[in-house]
């Protein structure tokens, strides 16, 4: 692959300020960036590192409440964007610089057909006539391997799946053949099997049109597949920049090394205790929401005391519904849940306090699972007060003890409200609330998927430590196989409401697999920069992602 070495985008000393608490605070503290034609640069870092802000800044755009400060320079193809007028900048956007957002579902206008949104930019800039533009769109859809390329554009966004929509959005960004595309976490919201298709499509099309791209993500393995060079960011400052291979093999800075090391945590695998009754046992459960199709179809699995069972599968596979059946939010249509060999009351409203206490839940989004108007002391204290009847000093001691347990300083956090905490701290409060009930079994519903890798790692270590200290059983719902590898003892793989495979973790990660498990495993990106190329060669482009999943299901 030969790349023209002329500079397309040159950012010098970019500083972006945000307005908060009546002061202007630096969000980006002087970042330099040079992007050549046809080059793909990966921007990685934790949330809050300023990745997206830099991405927007590359278009000369600052979001509401932020501004690009003086002395910054963003030069796009010889044109200074920071001093250009708004109409000059507008003329570039969509035409020569395009943007692909994280959530395609939220970025498409639901009231217009996909192809009408696609042709909007070429028509606006008078590059093509409507029919030409539609013809061109269909060609792009074909290149991106969307099914039925000649008719898919005439659907509305809600009639198309998430992965397809993300590809349609990439096609839309391509509609004017821009010189630069900014991808802002385009695959973060997708399942692994879908992600792979989108990645392959993006890579092909960027290569074919020799488009330069800035690829923003927090997933190292993904960026390793996509980028020629990687830039690591931390709190608005550059940590280091190097070509992908060099960066992966030989990171220089400590922070980069710590990012690389994240995936190393692995808790030792426990074995099922012999001759014991399982703590929770699902027996041939069928479940459905009122008058809908069956979500769970003959699901059975056991969870033993003190062990972690990971339930994996794509979205829509029925993982969360299984959790709702156990908690009693959705009584099963058929089959029953056994707790220590005894039937567990199906509806949570009929359960006794003790039954309710046994089974606690930690939610995916700490933002919606903690009441923003209630103090931490009450959030954690309420279960203790409710179940154990603690009052006054005893209650305060218990809350302090729980805060200690989740490694937060009691004196600092006792009187705070959830919005004053970071994402990881909120998730820890969620854990403390579950522990306050003194349960034997905790359902963890995607607890780490909304968190940065370093923070998620801390949460996993905490959960593992608590499990050892308190002999807890976890049902760990996740779609992230790296998490499974680090914390699970047993794995249950679900597809379309059925359990396709289950067993101890080390067996699950060894062949032979069920074809679906195999597909899931092989779709997890690896740090090897040639992984995607190798995989596509091995399996063929038509045998990855949704297409393959559909084949297995039938």
């Amino acid at each position, binding site marked *: 692959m030969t790349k023209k070495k002329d500079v397309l985008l040159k950012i010098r000393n970019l500083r972006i300020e945000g307005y908060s608490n009546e002061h202007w605070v630096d969000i980006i503290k002087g970042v330099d960036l040079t992007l050549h034609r046809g080059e793909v640069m990966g921007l990685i870092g934790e949330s809050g590192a300023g990745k997206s802000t830099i991405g927007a800044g590359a278009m000369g755009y600052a979001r*509401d*409440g932020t501004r690009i400060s003086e002395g910054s320079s963003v030069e796009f193809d010889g044109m200074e964007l920071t001093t250009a007028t708004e109409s000059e900048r507008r003329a570039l956007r969509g035409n020569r610089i395009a943007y692909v957002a994280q959530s395609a579902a939220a970025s498409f206008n639901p009231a217009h057909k996909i192809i009408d949104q696609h042709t909007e930019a070429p028509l606006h800039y008078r590059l093509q006539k409507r029919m030409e533009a539609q013809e061109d769109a269909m060609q792009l859809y074909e290149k991106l391997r969307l099914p039925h390329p000649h008719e898919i554009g005439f659907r509305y966004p809600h009639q198309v799946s998430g992965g397809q929509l993300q590809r349609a959005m990439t096609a839309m960004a391509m509609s004017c053949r821009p010189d630069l595309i900014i991808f802002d976490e385009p695959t973060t919201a997708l399942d692994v099997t879908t992600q792979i298709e989108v990645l392959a499509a993006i890579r092909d099309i960027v290569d074919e049109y020799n488009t330069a791209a800035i690829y923003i993500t927090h997933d190292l393995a993904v960026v390793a597949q996509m980028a020629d060079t990687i830039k690591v960011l931390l709190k608005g400052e550059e940590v280091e920049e190097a070509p992908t291979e060099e960066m992966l093999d030989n990171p220089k800075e400590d922070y980069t090394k710590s990012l690389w090391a994240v995936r190393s945590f692995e808790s030792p695998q426990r074995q099922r205790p012999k001759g014991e009754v399982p703590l929770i046992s699902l027996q041939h459960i069928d479940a459905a929401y009122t008058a809908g199709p069956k979500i769970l179809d003959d699901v059975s699995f056991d969870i033993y005391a003190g062990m972690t069972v990971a339930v994996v599968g794509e979205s829509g596979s029925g993982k969360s519904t299984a959790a709702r059946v156990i*908690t*009693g*939010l959705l009584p099963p249509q058929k089959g029953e849940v056994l707790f220590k060999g005894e039937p567990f009351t199906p509806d*949570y409203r009929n*359960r006794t*306090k003790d039954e*309710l206490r046994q089974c*606690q*839940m930690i*939610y995916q*989004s700490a933002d*919606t*699972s*903690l*009441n*923003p*108007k*209630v103090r931490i002391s*009450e959030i954690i204290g*309420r*279960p203790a007060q*409710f*179940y154990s009847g603690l009052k006054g000093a005893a209650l305060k001691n218990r809350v302090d003890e729980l805060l200690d347990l989740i490694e937060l300083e009691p004196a600092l956090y006792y009187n705070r409200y959830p919005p004053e905490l970071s994402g990881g701290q909120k998730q820890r409060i969620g854990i403390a*609330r579950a522990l306050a*009930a003194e349960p034997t079994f905790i359902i963890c519903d995607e607890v780490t998927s909304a968190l940065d890798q370093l923070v998620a790692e801390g949460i996993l270590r905490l959960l593992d430590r608590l499990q050892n200290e308190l002999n807890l059983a976890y049902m760990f719902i996740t779609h992230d196989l790296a998490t499974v590898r680090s914390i699970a003892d047993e794995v249950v793989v679900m597809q379309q409401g059925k359990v396709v495979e289950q067993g101890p973790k080390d067996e699950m990660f060894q062949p032979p697999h069920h074809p679906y498990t195999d597909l899931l495993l092989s779709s997890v990106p690896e740090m090897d920069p040639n992984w995607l190329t190798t995989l596509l060669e091995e399996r063929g482009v038509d045998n990855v992602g949704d297409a393959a999943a559909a084949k297995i299901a039938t």
Partner: protein
Amino acid sequence: MSLFVIGYYTLILAASCLAAYFNKRSAFLLLFSLTLVSFVLGIIGGVGALKFVVVVAGLIALSAMVSYAFREFLITLSPTGVAKELRTAPLTAAFGMFVIFTYAIAGIFAPLIAPHGEAAVISGAFAPADENMLLGADQLGRDMFSRLVFGARNSVGLALTATLMAFFLGATAGLLAAVKGGWFDQAMGRFADVIMSIPSLIFALLMLSIFGPTIPVIIVAVAIIYAPRVFRLTRAVAGNVVVMDYIEAAKLRGEGTGYLIRREVLPNSMAPLIAEFGLEFCFVFLLVAGLSFLGLGIQPPTADWGSMVRENATLISFGDITPLIPAAAIALLTVGVNFVVDWMLHRSSGLKE
């Protein structure tokens, strides 16, 4: 051409030029359009019209200064947390707070402030204002100013009680409906629809002619009329809250409905409810005034702004503004409350940028 006119145009032109020179775009636009309007006004209305403009501008400047000083006063007095919030209040909100504050003082200390009794006849009918009577006398020779002050107590007190009751009924039903759901929700919703389908004034007149125009009946009638609106809003707001994970967590913990409503749902639906309280208060106030005007509200000789407008209405045909004074009192309070409500809505809707 008088000195006043020359001074007027010189001043306003100088101010527009200064604004233009210092690049104050909006100030310049305002001042210069005022200049252009003044040319026309001066030709048509003469010196009188220009003087009117000056008086209006002076009044606006005066109320702006009062609002500013009042806001600074509140900021100095209140604790740090509240002070920080108050600092975000625009001048209009401060003006609204000042108006509410004044009315509250007038209402609470009415017997001390009013120079004469509420029903005391002290002069002839429709006597003009003199040093004894600030605003003249009404149709029975009672002091207008004293009645205005007592009216603040009666009218505002009644509207406040009725609004509080409407909120108590509506919010309780709305929260229960949102948390319970199912048939209870449906039943409450349809019941509210039935009440709302009856025209409010007719409903109030009906209730008052059946049970007699006493104060408890007025309060209950008005509360019943306004409770369904509060119910709808509360149910909608709480409906968004009850689907949150923390509510599910509380339900799974086995919490009762009382705890769910009090500790989990209510604190998260408070902001729109407070804003709605201000709005409803204005509507209730106007309805009560309307009822009084029709003779079915607060009964004489109790002073009430609505009935004061009606009793003195004949004066309007003689070009006297006396009947408009209680009307202006109602308007000022409504505007003031709405200024404060606007600010609260702005804050709770997150439109801060």
